[in-house]
């Protein structure tokens, strides 16, 4: 009972935060000191047209009404229209969001599969060469500007070795010879579903470098965090008791200690998920990846504020929910949580 209450409480809090977030996003977008109506109608429009546009966009209304109108539209799936392209933003989002998500998800998989085990091993073999090399690796990853790593990877694999493509999600040849049918927007899934294996391989080749670049920071972070928590957990009496009961190394490290260490690690992972979404922006620029990041950066530079607000909102919503997810996970793993 306590657990369910806790989860509901967290959900409500998350919703509250979302409201706050949407208000702030809205306010910040408003700070952009240009006139959206003027941008909307273009520089050569007559003052009357501009006024009409102003009314149409609801810019004459008091701020809070504009906000409410905005929220209503968002909840209905209407994110407004791009000031530049006049296209509904939600259409753009349908293309760009999966592109970025695919990148982020693959990068999260790398993080989980590489970061956590390395952190555990680092703690288990503390102060040996395994530990030291893993820690050096981690600190380098955490200190590297992700866009620089992206450039380096391009330098190595594209320029020097010629193994991988320079950017984009698919190569032009594939787009013509084996076009990808958009089902989910996740190209790996879409090509697999249709058995389009040549396209699948091509998509993978395009995905590899950006997701590795993106994963680097999170990998470094998870190694450090997992190691730190594991080291602390391994000093606990209940681990000594486990050794005293003759349990094997594999059981103690991966079955017991990891469970005790997992919660802070998950928190870090959720943090790095968000970081990766923002980091994706930087990686997308380098790899010419048609995702949310490129979309957002262009919108900022062209002062297309509906886009800026929409993207900011979406990313933040992801953030809030991933935090919520971690809280709920913690409540499920740790039986003591609901008592707090």
């Amino acid at each position, binding site marked *: 009972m306590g657990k369910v209450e806790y989860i509901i409480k967290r959900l409500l809090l998350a919703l509250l935060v979302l409201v*706050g977030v949407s208000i702030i996003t809205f306010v910040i977008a408003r700070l952009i000191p240009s006139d959206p109506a003027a941008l909307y109608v273009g520089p050569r429009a007559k003052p009357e047209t501009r006024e009409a546009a102003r009314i149409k966009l609801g810019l004459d209304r008091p701020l809070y009404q504009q906000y409410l109108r905005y929220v209503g539209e968002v909840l209905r799936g209407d994110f407004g229209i791009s000031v530049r392209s006049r296209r509904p933003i939600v259409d753009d989002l349908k293309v760009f969001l999966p592109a970025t998500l695919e990148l982020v998800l693959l990068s999260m998989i790398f993080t989980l599969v590489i970061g956590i085990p390395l952190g555990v091993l680092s703690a288990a073999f503390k102060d040996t060469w395994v530990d030291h090399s893993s820690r050096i690796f981690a600190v380098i990853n955490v200190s590297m500007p992700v866009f620089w790593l992206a450039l380096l990877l391009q330098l190595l694999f594209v320029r020097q070795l010629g193994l991988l493509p320079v950017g984009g999600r698919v190569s032009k040849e594939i787009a013509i010879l084996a076009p990808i049918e958009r089902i989910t927007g996740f190209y790996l899934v879409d090509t697999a579903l249709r058995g389009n294996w040549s396209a699948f391989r091509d998509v993978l080749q395009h995905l590899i470098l950006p997701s590795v670049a993106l994963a680097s920071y999170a990998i470094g972070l998870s190694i450090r965090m997992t190691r730190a928590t594991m080291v602390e957990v391994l000093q606990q009496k209940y681990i000594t008791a486990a050794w005293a009961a003759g349990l094997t190394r594999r059981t103690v490290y991966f079955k017991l200690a990891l469970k005790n260490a997992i919660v802070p690690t998950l928190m870090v992972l959720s943090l790095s998920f968000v970081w990766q979404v923002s980091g994706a922006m930087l990686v997308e620029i380098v790899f010419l990846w048609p995702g949310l990041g490129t979309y957002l950066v262009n919108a*900022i530079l062209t002062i297309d504020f509906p886009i800026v607000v929409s993207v900011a909102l979406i990313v933040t919503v992801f953030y809030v929910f991933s935090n919520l997810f971690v809280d709920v996970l913690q409540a499920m793993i740790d039986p003591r949580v609901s008592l707090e």
Partner: protein
Amino acid sequence: MTVKREKTPGQAQSAWSARFLEYGLMWRALRRDRLAVISLAIILIFVLGAVFAPWLAPYPDQALGKSNLAEKLDPPSAAHPLGTDDVGRDLLSRILYGSRPSLSIGIFVVGLAMLIGTPLGAIAGYSGGWIDQAIMRITDIFLSFPALLLAIAVSAALGASFFNAMLSITLTWWPWYTRLARAQAVSLKEQTFVEASRAIGVPGFTIIRRHIIPNVLTPALVQATMDIGSAILMGSALSFVGLGVQLPKADWGNMLNVARLYFNDGPWFAIFPGLAILLIAMCFNLLGDGVRDVLDPQSRRTG
């Protein structure tokens, strides 16, 4: 007749002086950590490089923007140890000058964030009640934004400049210190020496100033040392996107932004500025690790 207020023996050594003593001892312990010492040395070299850049740079005018098209995209040579950029400017000089905005952002952002966030958190934690709730809700909302995104959005809204970049990054950073300080303050509040102070009627604000804040300072400083590296990274990310220091002024981030277009012809242009960022961030991280191990071995933060 004025009453001379005698200093009670306990009062003579306030929490502040105790802190300074502690830091002296910690410094000696830190000296034993070789990685931390090396990192500190490298950081000092960078700082000196930044301060004395106009004298150290072989081509200071190129660093400030004068182009030299004849030698554009030259590989590293005797004349240009790190090569030249897309308009022929000496990379070594540009990198030296570029250390200025990077280091300043790192230090100022973290310093400001700590200055704003720590007292706020201390007040929130100690006061409790609606003050605590209000401050923490605002903090939570700021924390729900992905930092880079918020920084980019605010920076764009305010206009692309170094100062605005610094401001927007600080805006994303202060909540962490508030949270940290609040957690500390809450646990300190329960301690007997605070209760004792309250019992003899010391006003809340004084308690915060004299007891809470100095004790909160230690974890804050540990965090700050590590954060400087991350702040530098974020600053360079902002200028990479075009929102920080504007060309032709040299900045590691904006240099990489141009470099990516020329990576085929001039890979050194892409390598060296990034290497500088990596190096300085690593040093701050390692230094932060060392500081944390010495000042707060119980801390379980990333490391």
